[in-house]
């Protein structure tokens, strides 16, 4: 009974944290619940379909289909998060201004919501299909359905609770700095995802496997609750290889540079129009 709840909790946690950060990052925007909710729903449906085809996905591409799928999903999510952050870096100021005007209805402007939708959906897709496979395994091995359901629900509730806690914590941040904080969170989230994706590519034999540069698992294991939280939030890995670090910092620098260039361009544009 405890087994299912722990595993479901671990899988739900990752998706819950991603969704939480996306919700905080779009605070005050009309329609965001519908879009993110839609992404989550599509992710759940997709997860069941993926779980059903797990065998054929794994067999594809000479037995490395699962790694390619996971890496593909992660890289796509990184792309969506990068896009969001770069878009926000040019619009955050207006959004903050709008949020501060009480009673003034906030409009989403031209925020392309579908990439938030996609990012939320992808987070659910990858983790959800593992939950489905795991619960199917338990069901097939004959453990009581009631126990399985109870364990699953317990794990789901636990994961969502952590998400809610993080969300209420994020909402305590003053509006003026909220988007800066969520911007950083999304940046680190994306970098961690890229590093995880590179791990799948080396598991598939597409990237070389190197010995880890260091090992901090004795100090903070990725398997512990805090270690796992940090793994999801900032991409903590107890045994990172040079390739993992390369992908991590490469992503960080690429998105960071994009955000910087766009916000600078916007600023120049704004001062230009003020002069004339």
């Amino acid at each position, binding site marked *: 009974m405890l*087994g299912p709840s722990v*595993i479901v909790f671990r899988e739900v946690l990752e998706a819950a944290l991603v969704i939480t950060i996306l919700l905080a990052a779009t605070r005050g925007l009309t329609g965001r619940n519908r879009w993110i909710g839609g992404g989550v729903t599509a992710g759940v449906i997709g997860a069941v379909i993926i779980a059903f085809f*797990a*065998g054929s996905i*794994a*067999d594809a*591409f*000479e*037995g*490395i289909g*699962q*790694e390619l799928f996971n890496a593909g999903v992660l890289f796509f999510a990184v792309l969506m998060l990068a896009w969001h952050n770069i878009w926000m870096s040019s619009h955050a100021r207006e959004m903050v201004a709008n949020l501060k005007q009480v009673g003034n209805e906030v409009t989403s402007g031209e925020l392309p919501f579908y990439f938030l939708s996609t990012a939320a959906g992808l987070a659910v897709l990858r983790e959800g299909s*593992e939950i489905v*496979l*795991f619960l*199917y*395994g*338990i069901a*097939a*091995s004959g453990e009581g359905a009631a126990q399985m359901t109870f364990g699953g629900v317990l794990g789901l509730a636990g994961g969502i609770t952590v998400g809610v806690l993080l969300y209420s914590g994020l909402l305590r941040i003053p509006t003026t700095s909220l988007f800066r904080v969520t911007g950083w969170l999304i940046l680190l989230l994306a970098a961690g995802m890229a590093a995880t994706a590179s*791990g799948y590519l*080396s*598991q*598939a*034999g*597409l990237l070389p*496997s190197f*010995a*880890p540069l260091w090992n901090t*698992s004795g100090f903070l*294991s*990725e*398997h512990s609750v805090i270690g796992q939280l940090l793994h999801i939030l900032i991409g903590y*890995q*107890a*045994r990172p*290889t040079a390739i993992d670090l390369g992908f991590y910092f490469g992503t960080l620098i690429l998105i960071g540079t994009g955000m910087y260039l766009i916000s600078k361009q916007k600023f120049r544009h704004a001062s230009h129009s003020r002069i004339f």
Partner: protein
Amino acid sequence: MKYLIFMIFICFSSLVAAELPVYELSIKDHRFYPESLEIPAGTKVKLLVKNQDATPEEFESHQLNREKIIAGNSEATIYIGPLDPGEYGFFGEFNEATAQGKIIVE
């Protein structure tokens, strides 16, 4: 373009994979057989994990930094190494109580 790069990757990987030593691991009744597998140090090897149970299992190893779901009654390929001598534990995440094993690198 992406497709092209992807295909080059696949061709490249199959070329490389063809020369790698293959080690087999089975899963039966939620246990690994053998539970301890010896592989040479400093060599990349191909691990062929055959799941003979009807239920899916997730091969996971923190030390090896590997995780892979293996559907019921099917097999999966996992590349590991080159590794330094030592013991590297792995387990089946879906049946952690019984599915435990280690790779001994010499």
